[in-house]
């Protein structure tokens, strides 16, 4: 019977993944926290489930690093072991995120930190978690209608307006521009697109030829830019509400900085050559490291220190240009990015 064989195959395949190393949750920080009053061994650990949109997006890997750094620091400061449980799906899927919130609660997580791929899909799961005594905080992309206690991130509409204002300035207030918009279901990206459009309406010489959605992977994003560029050769500027396309190197050779200007959100190491080359003279960086870092800090404020946390904690974007390339590069290196080009670290 194939079903019997299939079952055996499933068992064999499961064994391919190897055996677990221990019975209990492995601390993501990887090290035992230092004590500062009280024995950490005796203290009840605080387990924070972190669910970003996609584990293949570098900004969320940076957020994870920030969360783990905060967990390590705060473990030392509070004497309570703090564990980050990384439950981010490989691809964006609000339904999977909702399932993982439930899983985190079922397995005894003390709090959830999430960036919502689809606010509508996760709102029910967030409310269930809160009803079962597990506080939820959102970062980057909010679920404003849910019972989450706080949101940390930029004002997305304002960020969209800033992107367009910078682009209009670079283009001298005229030209045809396109919007690179990522996943059409992410509420934060939609608000940024609204901001871009509303700001563009203030510049009579700016004409938006279209808003282009794509799978949020670097290759898909870059391919979309090239496709649109081939269809509209007279594009003068790109307003990118996320930095996906600049995570590849391909646009460095495919686009001419004398003909096209880009203003994009995010400024990770792979995007910095675009600033240097003048193709993206302005990047508006979200400090993605701080998503995790501040998120975990606020959760500990609420759970451990019993402090009141504001419902919205605003993050101000950082303007990265050729003048600030050096200081921003050093900041990235300090946050643990090993791939920052050495030459940028030497800049003023």
């Amino acid at each position, binding site marked *: *019977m*194939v*079903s*019997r*064989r*299939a*079952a*055996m*195959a*499933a*068992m*064999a*395949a*499961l064994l*391919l*993944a*190897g055996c*677990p190393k*221990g*019975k*209990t*949750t*492995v601390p993501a920080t990887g090290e035992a926290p230092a004590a500062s009053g009280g024995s950490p061994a005796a203290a*009840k650990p605080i*387990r924070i489930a972190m669910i970003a949109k996609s*584990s293949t997006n570098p900004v969320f890997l940076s957020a994870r690093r920030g969360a783990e750094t905060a967990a390590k620091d705060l473990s030392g400061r509070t004497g309570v072991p703090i564990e980050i449980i990384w*439950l981010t*799906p*490989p*691809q964006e*899927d*609000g*339904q999977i995120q*909702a*399932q*993982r919130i*439930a*899983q985190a*609660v*079922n*397995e*005894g997580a*003390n709090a959830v930190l999430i960036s919502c791929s*689809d*606010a*509508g*899909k996760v*709102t*029910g*799961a967030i409310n*269930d978690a809160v*009803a*079962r*005594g*597990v506080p939820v905080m959102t970062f980057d992309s909010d679920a404003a*209608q849910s019972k989450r206690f706080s949101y940390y991130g930029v004002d997305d509409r304002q960020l969209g307006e800033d992107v367009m204002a910078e682009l209009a300035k670079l283009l001298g207030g005229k030209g045809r521009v396109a919007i690179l918009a990522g996943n*059409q*279901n992410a*509420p934060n990206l939609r608000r940024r697109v609204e901001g871009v459009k509303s700001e563009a309406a203030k510049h009579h010489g700016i004409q938006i030829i279209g808003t282009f*959605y794509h799978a949020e992977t670097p290759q898909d994003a870059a391919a979309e830019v090239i496709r649109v560029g081939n269809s509209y050769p007279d594009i003068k500027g790109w307003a990118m509400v996320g930095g996906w396309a600049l995570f590849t190197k391909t646009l460095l050779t495919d686009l001419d900085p004398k003909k096209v200007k880009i203003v994009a959100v995010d400024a990770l190491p792979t995007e910095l050559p675009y600033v240097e080359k003048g193709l993206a003279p302005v990047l508006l960086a979200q400090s993605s490291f701080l998503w995790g870092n501040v998120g975990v800090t606020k959760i500990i404020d609420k759970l451990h220190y019993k402090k009141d946390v504001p419902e919205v904690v605003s993050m101000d974007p950082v303007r990265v240009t050729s003048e600030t390339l050096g200081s921003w590069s050093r900041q990235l290196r300090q946050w643990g990015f090993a791939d920052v080009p050495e030459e940028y670290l030497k800049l003023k």
Partner: protein
Amino acid sequence: MTAADSRMDPAGAPSDASRATRLSPIVRKLLRSQQFGLVTVIVFLLILLSVLAGSHIDNATGRSVNNFLNSYTLIQTATDASFFAIMAVGATIVIISGGIDLSVGSVYALAGVAMGLCLRVATPGGGVGAVVLGFVVAVAVGLAAGALNGAMVVALRVHPFIITLGTMWILRGIAFVSSKGDSITLPDSMIHFAKSPLGLGAALYPVPMLCMLIIAALGATYLHRTVMGRHVFALGGNAEASRFSGLRLGRIQIGVYVLAGLTAGLAAFLGSGFYGSVSCVDATGYELYVIASAVVGGARLSGGRGSAINAMLGAVLIVLIRQSIRTLHLDQNYEWIIIGCAIVIAVVLDQASARFAARRLAQGEE
């Protein structure tokens, strides 16, 4: 001395050999049952996860709770499987007929979006009205999409892989255009229906799991207890022989795609209600999980063999493997590798088994 005599010891009591022989038909039947292997592995995984999952202190009761063996996780795992499993029942019927349906994920998305848009416009007064309207719309869209697939396969005489590959994109495109990419929130009554605790207590939602069991049972009844179900097996087993025996193959083919659309519509109704919103990207890539569930459940892609119950068990097994990766804190990126390996190994073993059986048959004839 008769054969029966040989099974008695001199004192007249049944010997060990005789007891074994007496038990053997039951044991043999059990061992030969289509579900035995899958159930064995599912039970093995349940035990393995229960032992290795570790435990945590429940915030509310202060008691130690196993991370896996608790009612929340078990029902959540069944719920996660239920949406695939319901679609897998329909997809298995298509596979048994010798076809394939790649569009089930898109049918799910379109049925969900249509339901969301209708509920947004119609906003029926009572809570039950919204649930009924949502159900009717989701099922109607599923049936229509299935009928379209079936009619195109029959009328155009193009391989169903190509037809459903095309409709997979077309239907998702319609969902995108009609929703304008919006995520549409559903009325609370839909959520209350899909997340009704049925007296089990807060945060325990057994409705999708129960629907999965009912639909699998209905699917099994259809396939094994009705004439139409036998016709599906006949078509998949030997289309030419079925034609010569007078079966109306076109009607059977359209029927199986309609059933696949129906199950996708039902899954959309339940899944969308459970998660409380719909969007055009819902169920992206789910067709592969659905087909994988059918194949792991023993369906033969060349047709003629498959089981609705096994498809459900296949879906449960795949979700359990996914769950185990997370519960055991393995690297979650192994999920695709493990599921992929399970499917490939299952199909390879299936083909080897078929070759072995054919060889034995040939030797028997000699």
